[in-house]
Every structure is written in C-alpha cells, then in structure tokens.
C-alpha cells in the first residue's frame, strides 16, 4: 500500500491485512526515490493499493509503477477518469448512465451563456477536488459573475467551468462503496440543516442505506464505465430516479463502516488477494 498520510482508512486496511495473514507492506510515497530505468516489480510486490491523499502524487506514482509492470489499484486509467469530474461525466454519458445535466465552458462570458441554457440555480465544481471544496452554488447571474471573477484569479484548473444543474433532491445523497463492480455497502449522507452540500467533511451525518436493485444496478454500471476497482460512487435521488454525480478514486469509508457494519477493509484485502498474480 502506498500512502502519504495515514488516515483511519489506511490503518484499518493495514490491520485487516495483518488479521488475514496477508503481507501488506506500507510505503510512504514521500520516501520514494525511483530511478526510472530500474525494475520495481520485486520491491512493490504483486499488487499495489494506491491510497495517497494528494491526487497529483497518486496519479504520477501510479503511472510510474504501472509502466514498470506493477499492477496498481485503482489503475492509471481509472485514476485519470474517476479523479476528474469532467472525464467521469463523459464516461457516464457514453455508458448511458443517468447523471446531472452538465455544461462546459472555458471563460466567464461563455460560462454565463452556458448557464442560460442550463438555468439557475446551478452548481460550479472544480474538475479535480474533493470534500465539497470550491463547489459553489450559482443562485443567479449576479452570483455567477462574482464567483467567476474570483476564479479568474486562481490556478487555471479553476477556470475550467464545469457546471451542473442543481438537482432537486432530498437533503442527502448516497455514497456506495463499490469493489469489483459490486456494491458492498451504502450510506445516506444527510446534510446538516443550512448546508446544501452533503459532504461528510462538512459535517454531514451517515445513515445506512438499503442496497436496492436500482442502486446496485446504477453503481455497477458506473463502476464499469470508469474502469472498475475500488470506488466510492455518489448518487442523488432526483424526481426521475437516481443520478450518479461523481465517482471517487480513493474513497474514504470511515463513516460507512460504523453505519453499515460492513467490513470494508477486509473486503479490500480479499479483492487485492484475488488480483494477485
């Protein structure tokens, strides 16, 4: 397992491996020094679980290990697609999976035009990012203009105007943990009153969510659409049924384990063992 900081997740995965007698070596990516000519299959073993918090670090390390013949979970293509909300949306659309209406522009002027097509309120999201960070509600044209003005002074990534319709949903969304295209556990993330976002990092509450046929089906399809592996698939309950709004590449499950009682770290280890050459 490669990591940069040890969260609860990395710790319970390490403990699950110990319990199952699996030799899981912990490698701090901050200590890695790779001569790109060398072979690394021996050093990194049969399969590497990628758990870096930093997306750029994880992506570059995964690319390197994979090129050196080491299998990585999730693989590089999944990390590219699931790590970027636009690429995820494109993959979902291609696979015919229901997802919120999304528009794309590259400058404030054209983004305002896009918003006329989409209507207000709408949601602006960085294509790379998490925990609800910089996800902004665009209530009307004035607030959109003000927010775009800010973004124009930020890193170019934030000038990719990826904007979604605001989905009329209950004050919650659904996080499903999907391993090998199967939903193993799901929670409702219920937002605190007053916050429209339902991120756990923003204080939302976790409640067990029954895995219905509809949920199982849409999450399995979303997982296949981005290339499989270990994923956190987020759905919203729209008036017309479930929509997938994002797929997480290094999913957290600290709140899912107590809410559902499912041994997610154990299932992760089982999956890695199954992949072993």
């Amino acid at each position: 397992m490669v990591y940069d900081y040890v969260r609860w997740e990395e710790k319970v995965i390490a403990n699950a491996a110990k319990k199952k007698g699996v030799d899981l070596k912990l490698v701090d990516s901050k200590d890695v020094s790779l001569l790109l000519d060398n072979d690394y299959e021996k050093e990194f073993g049969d399969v590497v679980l990628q758990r870096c918090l930093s997306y750029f670090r994880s992506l570059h390390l995964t690319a390197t290990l994979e090129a050196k013949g080491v299998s990585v979970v999730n693989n590089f293509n999944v990390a590219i697609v699931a790590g970027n909300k636009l690429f995820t949306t494109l993959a979902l659309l291609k696979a015919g999976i229901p997802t919120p209406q999304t528009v794309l522009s590259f400058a404030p002027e054209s983004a305002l035009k896009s918003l006329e097509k989409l209507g207000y309120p709408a949601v602006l999201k960085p294509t790379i990012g998490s925990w609800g960070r910089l996800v902004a509600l665009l209530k009307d044209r004035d607030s959109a203009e003000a927010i775009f003005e800010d973004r124009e002074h930020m890193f170019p990534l934030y000038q990719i105007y990826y904007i979604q319709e605001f989905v009329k949903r209950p004050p919650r969304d659904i996080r499903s943990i999907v391993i090998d295209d199967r939903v193993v556990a799901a929670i409702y993330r219920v937002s605190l009153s007053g916050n429209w976002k339902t991120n756990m990092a923003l204080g939302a509450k976790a409640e067990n969510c029954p895995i219905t046929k509809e949920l199982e089906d849409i999450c399995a399809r979303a997982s296949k659409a981005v290339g499989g592996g270990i994923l956190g698939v987020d759905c919203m309950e729209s008036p017309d049924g479930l929509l997938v709004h994002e797929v997480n590449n290094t999913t957290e499950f600290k709140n899912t384990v107590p809410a559902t009682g499912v041994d997610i770290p154990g299932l992760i280890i089982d999956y890695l063992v199954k992949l072993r050459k």
Partner: protein
Amino acid sequence: MKCPECDGEIPLPKDAIEGEIVTCLDCGTSFELYKKEDGKFDIRSIQVVGEDWGE
C-alpha cells in the same frame, strides 16, 4: 504526548505508524506522527490541506 497548541493530551496509538494523523483530545488540532532519530515517535504540524487532496 503534549499538544503544542493547548498543552492537552495527544494519545500515541499502540500500533502507531509513521505518517499517521493524530488529534489532540482537547483542542482537536491534528498532527502528523514521525520517527525521531532515536526511533521514538514525535509529532509535527501537517502541511496545510493540499488543493489536490481528497477522495
């Protein structure tokens, strides 16, 4: 261990790992565990949350 912010108690987990994030019971500030040259654990502040950090 003592919290440098508030002097509160930061418990060292029995199965501590280098790089693990530990949190002060009193003020809630988080720190990263690292190994000193003598092999003992100490804490240091974590770099501010990176813009690309996440799930």
